[in-house]
């Protein structure tokens, strides 16, 4: 193979139907309300960690649905389980339970999640 000094750029497009999402299905079983999220952003806006870090629960949920959890799971390290997001969620999702469930299903151990 010849190296011409430039290469093919990988596509940034999400190809959703190719995403097999058994982990999200498992998460859905533990916390059925995860699909109620309307991505309003109240959680991120009120997040204690979100002011200083990249932590955004809205983005985490969305990336799990799209199968791109690698990009966002590390954020969850910053979560302190303070519960401010749960106070504001208009859909009444138990966000603390959701975060802990994500940790269990996607393999973050207890120390990382906290």
């Amino acid at each position, binding site marked *: *193979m*010849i*190296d*011409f*000094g*430039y*290469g*093919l*750029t990988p*596509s940034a497009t999400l190809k959703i139907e190719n995403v097999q999402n058994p982990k999200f299905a498992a998460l859905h079983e533990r916390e059925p309300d995860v699909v109620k999220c309307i991505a309003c952003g109240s959680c991120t806006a009120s997040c204690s960690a979100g002011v200083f870090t990249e932590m955004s629960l809205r983005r985490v949920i969305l990336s799990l649905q799209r199968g791109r959890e690698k990009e966002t799971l590390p954020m969850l390290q910053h979560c302190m389980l303070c519960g401010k997001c749960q106070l504001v969620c208009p859909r009444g999702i138990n966000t603390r339970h959701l975060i802990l469930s994500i940790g269990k299903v996607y393999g973050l151990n207890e120390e990382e999640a906290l």
Partner: protein
Amino acid sequence: MIYQGKQRIWSEYQKEIPTDHWFYVRSCIRQTFWPASEKMFLEVLRNRIGKDIYETPCHTTCGGIAYHSETIPQETVMTIIARQFALMTEAGYENYVCSCITSFGLYSEVIEDWREFPELEAKIRENLWKATKREFKIPTYLAHASDLIYKFRNEIAEQAKFRLVNHKTGKPLRVVEHIGCHYSKMFPSKGVGGAEYPYVLAGMVESWGGEVIDYPERRHCCGFGFRQYLVKANRGYSVSNTHKKFESMEPFEPDMIITNCPGCPYFLDRWQYVIAEQTGKTYGKDGYGIPVFTYEEVAGLVLGYDPWDLGLQTHQVAVEPLLDKMGIPYKPEDKYKGLNGKELQRPDFPMNIKCC
């Protein structure tokens, strides 16, 4: 695919194209990439169809490459174009046809800008006068050379010796048509068939017996642009766009690609080599790749001109498999012979893509 749906859209974007008396301007780079294309255009329209196509040796580039690479400002390129129009006016013509599709887009854009901003037009007139003492009139009709071949496609079909048909099986050839971005994406009403399903090349293919393929990335850019390939490090972006098109058209098994831009066929042709040498993958059957043609070359082929007179030896992707399919006779030994049968050297063959 419901064909009538497309036909309805084509009928909504009909463009008025006059039949005679055109002022022709050539393209900067087309003659290097596709040597015989412009000569073929003049040959077909003047000698086969019998129209008046005039060109003057005084005409220049439209300035498109420099403008799109951001090396000259808009005012300069408008003045260059004004001079071209002045040459047209002095020669007594009012129909303007250009060979390059970027030129076509640029001329359309400039005329539209002058219509919206008359003070800009006045300024350019003044610039031209100061620089060259020339005056100009805006052309009544602006067309691209492919519009004219489209208009006379049936006359060409009548005189045709070959058709876009596999002469062994009798089936029409599967043709991918690729329109240059500057043709109808900016001003859909200025292109035959509009922006979504342009008909200018599809019409030619159908009159000459071929079958047009609609594949998902049909309207995707080939990646030519200007800025993205002038600098070597950016070329990955260009080749990725072409790669996307080829990946999309592969399941449809096209026999050939027809285009109407100088840059598009260049990239669609040469990038097949790059992709083959970088990744090992070729498209088309038996590792030969999918041959790419300009519409003038296809017109020349169906009219029976010798393939080597059409400059097909400069194509990277081998055209011989297609010539065999169409039943066009050619002499393989004459491929790399110059004028008077002079032996020119043969190029080296690449590793992963088969050439003849």
